[in-house]
């Protein structure tokens, strides 16, 4: 028989297409997941990097001070004097929002438009009619929009347009339109170009900018120039290359990639289990045929090779179906996954385009073929090595596997390596060990299925008798007659549903932690903020004049401002959350729950500006403890301040520092607020006050006015958004589980055709035969759920306590999804009954005489 001759395997597969469909679907799902996730990772990373590239234009270095904090234009002159700096472009960078229903975000770039070299840096091409020489561009409120934006709204040069800005709603006049080149390609053309003076008036203050874009001489090393610039920069400013920001993004995307890899592991693991189960069942059912091959004289090696060829055909078919499905998966999920990554990094969600990467497809194909081949290797080996006489004599019986001692040795090895992997993860904070531990726990759960079946065998028999009466005995007998197949089915169920529960526990822990913290920290009557989301989930900042405007509204009592901004510390991004001092001293506005030790009178100390509170992920990632002094580089110089306590905070995955806004404003010179919390006066109608604020200030600032429960709900919804794919995943797993159980039951019915015929001959009615199969399916479901709960709990705990914080930086409390566990248990029961429908009907419909003649 030639190595690449597939005639014999094809002939053997001929009559089993229906049964093989499940295995093919399983392999296809695994391939789709791997290729889809890889394509999504590529597409999302490319989109984020493109944003950085287009924003930076040809600039090779940027000087800034974190999230838009402004600094003097004078800095540009100091920087320009550094050898190697060819050009310095002072920039006002801001955001504005359309006032229509879409509320689209536009990036504002304000620079000296009369400087032709600056225009070239951003590769801008104004349309032919006007150009950047038009003196009208220097008028107050003059802006240049992109053709894409203007055409979509039927706007032309000379038209006026309103935008919501941190200073409220402002009117601008269109003085030019940009061709889709350079920076103008950014975010589908949602860009406003202004002269720097106009931008300073509209978005900042005269003489203050918030970014310098630098072009370095070609013969100079940008890193050397950056080091030289760093020595002359005032405190709080930093210089970085767009490449550095790309590297940071790569880090975030690597973390998401690792998360997707964990899903891949599960997908491939489940595909492997289903392929293993399907092929084991198939080869066992055909063991007599293999016996015939052996009896005629085919060597065990040749038999094994032919069986592997069958699995290879299944793998090829699964891969051929899985790759297009993966592309479809990528097209569907690239948006939500990019959104989740953007939420995590608090950046605007870029537009993504899925492009085919041959490496992704090859990776998926290799995984698919390996899953099918490895899934077949052991069953094929067993089938080819069995005693010829036995395989010919006994049809449908389970072939001998490794002995009990070998199994326990294998399980012991699995348990030990899992424990080692978990210990290594905790010791090294390495996500790679977390992924290894995850994979080992999944493997461990699969290996636990058999001992679980052995342990619950007796109660299961009793339960079957109790539920099914005399026919229940046959159900129980069949479950234990093919223990390997039963265990594999339980393992498939346990792994699939366990992983859904695990992810749900992660989502639930995150959501509940957010809700718990925010319900305690936000207790004011109303929360007022911009209706626009600037980056990720954070509202756009508004001018602090909002606070005085709010205080002047009848019925409004006290008002507290809250500024949330991004900053940098310890070589990476962090968040600053600054509340007015009164917030810390007046518990009626809410109070953040402290974790662990704290300084005496901690809130009063924080209100005075003598201490800050840090988040638990700040402690984890930046190793600060209560009582330590943390030195933050601010635009006004270093701020050394003691850590007074620790809270759970969800603004930055790396860490958050909470302080008084007075301290923040003094050091950061940032007069904006992100939110205003207000208490109404005694007896005031909150709804009426809310309506009044909307009427008086809503248009001016573009406001959103919510109650505290509503804003907590908003943040919880953002978390849910990040985990939105879970229900789809759960649905897919349930579908696979249904097909898997159905396949196992169908195999059992075929195998027991004569036995069922005997039951019918003796006088057992059809309904009882049907009940026997239904009960069997429910038993699979019950045992699978026991395993799923255990695996879900183990994985959930591992990820909440270790892997998730190390991977993305978030520290959350463990919350068990009781409601969802009940929901998925009921869904599993329904799926089991659904899966049993056709096999049970087939069993019940068997004609006794025919069934007895069945070979």
């Amino acid at each position, binding site marked *: 028989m030639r190595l690449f001759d597939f005639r014999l395997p094809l002939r053997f597969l*001929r009559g089993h297409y229906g049964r093989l469909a499940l295995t093919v679907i399983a392999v296809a799902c695994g391939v789709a997941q791997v290729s889809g996730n890889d394509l999504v990772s590529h597409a999302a990373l490319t989109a984020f990097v493109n944003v950085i590239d287009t924003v930076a234009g040809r600039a090779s270095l940027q000087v800034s001070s974190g999230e838009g904090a402004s600094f003097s234009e004078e800095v540009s002159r100091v920087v320009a004097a550094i050898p190697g700096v060819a050009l310095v472009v002072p920039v006002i960078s801001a955001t504005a929002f359309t006032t229509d229903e879409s509320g689209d975000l536009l990036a504002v770039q304000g620079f000296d438009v009369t400087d032709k070299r600056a225009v070239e840096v951003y590769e801008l091409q104004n349309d032919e009619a006007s150009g950047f020489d038009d003196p009208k561009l220097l008028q107050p409120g003059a802006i240049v929009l992109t053709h894409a934006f203007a055409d979509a709204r039927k706007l032309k040069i000379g038209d006026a347009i309103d935008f919501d800005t941190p200073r409220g709603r402002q009117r601008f006049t269109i003085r030019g339109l940009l061709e889709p080149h350079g920076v103008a390609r950014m975010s589908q053309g949602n860009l406003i170009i202004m002269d720097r003076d106009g931008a300073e008036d509209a978005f900042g203050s005269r003489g203050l900018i918030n970014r310098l874009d630098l072009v370095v001489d070609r013969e100079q090393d940008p890193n050397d120039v950056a080091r030289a610039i760093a020595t002359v920069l005032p405190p709080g400013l930093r210089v970085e290359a767009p490449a550095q920001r790309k590297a940071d993004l790569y880090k975030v995307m690597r973390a998401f990639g690792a998360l997707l890899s964990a899903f891949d592991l599960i997908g491939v693991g489940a595909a492997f289990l289903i392929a293993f189960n399907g092929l084991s069942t198939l080869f066992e059912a055909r063991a007599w045929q293999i016996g015939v091959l052996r009896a*005629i004289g*085919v060597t065990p*090696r040749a038999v094994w090779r032919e069986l592997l060829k069958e699995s290879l055909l299944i793998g090829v078919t699964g891969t051929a179906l899985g790759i297009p499905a993966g592309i479809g998966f990528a097209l569907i999920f690239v948006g939500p996954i990019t959104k989740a990554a953007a939420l995590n990094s608090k950046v605007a969600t870029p537009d993504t385009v899925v492009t085919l990467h041959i490496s992704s497809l090859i990776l998926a194909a290799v995984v698919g073929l390996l899953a099918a081949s490895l899934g077949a290797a052991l069953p094929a080996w067993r089938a080819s090595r069995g005693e*010829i006489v036995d395989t010919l004599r006994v049809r449908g019986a389970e072939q001998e596997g490794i002995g009990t001692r070998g199994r326990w040795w294998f399980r012991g090895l699995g348990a030990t390596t899992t424990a080692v992997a978990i210990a290594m993860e905790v010791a090294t904070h390495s996500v790679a060990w977390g992924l290894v531990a995850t994979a080992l726990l999944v493997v461990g759960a699969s290996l636990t299925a058999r001992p679980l079946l052995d342990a619950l065998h007796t109660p299961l028999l009793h339960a079957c008798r109790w539920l099914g009466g005399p026919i229940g005995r046959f159900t129980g007998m069949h479950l234990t007659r093919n223990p390997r197949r039963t265990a594999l089915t339980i393992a498939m169920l346990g792994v699939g549903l366990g992983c859904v529960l695990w992810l749900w526990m992660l989502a639930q822990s995150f959501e509940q932690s957010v809700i718990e913290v925010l319900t305690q920290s936000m207790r004011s009557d109303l929360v007022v903020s911009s209706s626009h989301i600037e980056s990720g989930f954070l509202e756009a900042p508004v001018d602090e004049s909002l606070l005085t405007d709010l205080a002047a509204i009848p019925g409004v009592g006290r008002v507290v401002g809250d500024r949330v901004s991004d900053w940098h510390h310890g070589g990476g991004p962090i968040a600053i959350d600054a509340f007015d001092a009164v917030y810390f001293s007046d518990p009626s506005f809410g109070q953040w729950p402290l974790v662990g030790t704290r300084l005496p009178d901690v809130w009063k100390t924080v209100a005075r500006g003598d201490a800050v509170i840090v988040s638990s992920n700040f402690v984890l990632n930046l190793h600060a403890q209560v009582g330590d002094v943390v030195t933050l580089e601010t635009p006004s110089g270093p701020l050394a301040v003691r850590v007074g306590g620790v809270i759970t905070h969800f603004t930055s995955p790396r860490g958050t520092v909470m302080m008084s806004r007075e301290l923040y404003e003094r050091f950061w010179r940032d007069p904006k607020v992100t939110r205003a919390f207000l208490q109404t006066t005694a007896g005031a109608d909150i709804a009426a006050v809310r309506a009044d604020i909307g009427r008086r200030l809503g248009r001016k600032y573009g406001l959103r006015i919510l109650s505290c429960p509503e804003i907590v709900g908003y943040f919880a919804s953002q978390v849910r958004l990040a985990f939105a794919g879970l229900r789809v995943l759960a649905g897919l797993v349930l579908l696979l589980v249904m097909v898997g159980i159905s396949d196992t039951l169908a195999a059992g019915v075929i195998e027991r055709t004569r036995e069922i015929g005997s039951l019918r001959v003796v006088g057992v009615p059809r309904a009882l035969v049907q009940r026997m199969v239904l009960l069997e399916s429910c038993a699979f479901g019950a045992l699978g759920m026991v395993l799923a709960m255990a695996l879900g709990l183990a994985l959930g705990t591992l990820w909440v306590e270790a892997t998730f914080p190390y991977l993305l930086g978030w520290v959350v409390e463990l919350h068990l999804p009781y409601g969802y566990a009940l929901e998925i248990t009921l869904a599993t029961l329904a799926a089991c009954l659904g899966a049993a429908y056709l096999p049970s009907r087939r069993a019940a419909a068997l004609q006794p005489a025919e069934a007895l003649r069945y070979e």
Partner: protein
Amino acid sequence: MSDRPMPPTNGVVVEHVSKRYGDGPQAVTALADVSLRINAGAFVSIMGPSGSGKSTLLNLIAGLDTPSGGRVIVCGEDLAALSDDARSLLRLRHIGFVFQSFNLFPTFTAEENVAWPLEFLGSSWREARARADTVLTHVGLNGAARGRRPAELSGGEQQRIAIARALVARPTLLLADEPTGNLDSKTGESILDLLRGLNADEGLTIVLVTHSAAAAAYGHRTVELRDGCIVGEQMEPRASTLPAM
């Protein structure tokens, strides 16, 4: 097994062979000190009731099972001295096996069921199919049935295919385990006639296991087994004088 010329003899020698299943007091003796010599070109029937050990003896001759004691020499080769692969090759080249329950592959056509062993001997599919056609003609299966699957054929036709499969590699020894056990008497007779013809016309050595005296009478010699021991042996008259089964 090496690719060497035909062994000096294609007969069968069974020397003091015993076969036990299980250990200790639970052990069951299927064969006890059985010795037998079957010359090349002989047609030997092994007869006995159920559980007498006749199928076990056949399996030992085919190398499908290993004896607990004694030795089996087939085509000049001591089976105990051969590796599993070498025994497989011996079966593939020199031994044909016919089962009571046909053991045809349900997803293969009649032609494919006959031809596939040749593919393992290195024949191309075209050659294998041509040879299968010849053998199917020889065993009396007409053209229309050759493209059908086993489930679409009668028991007699299925057994003819099984015999064709056993003959396709031109073996020198044919082992038939109750080949008429699943057939009606008329069809059974035609199958036995076929076997006798193969023996008479082509000199094929045949060992037939049966519990039927009538079927056994088709051989030149009948060996009677009971409780794992040979209890009798007789030379048969020519088949033309045999009664109907």
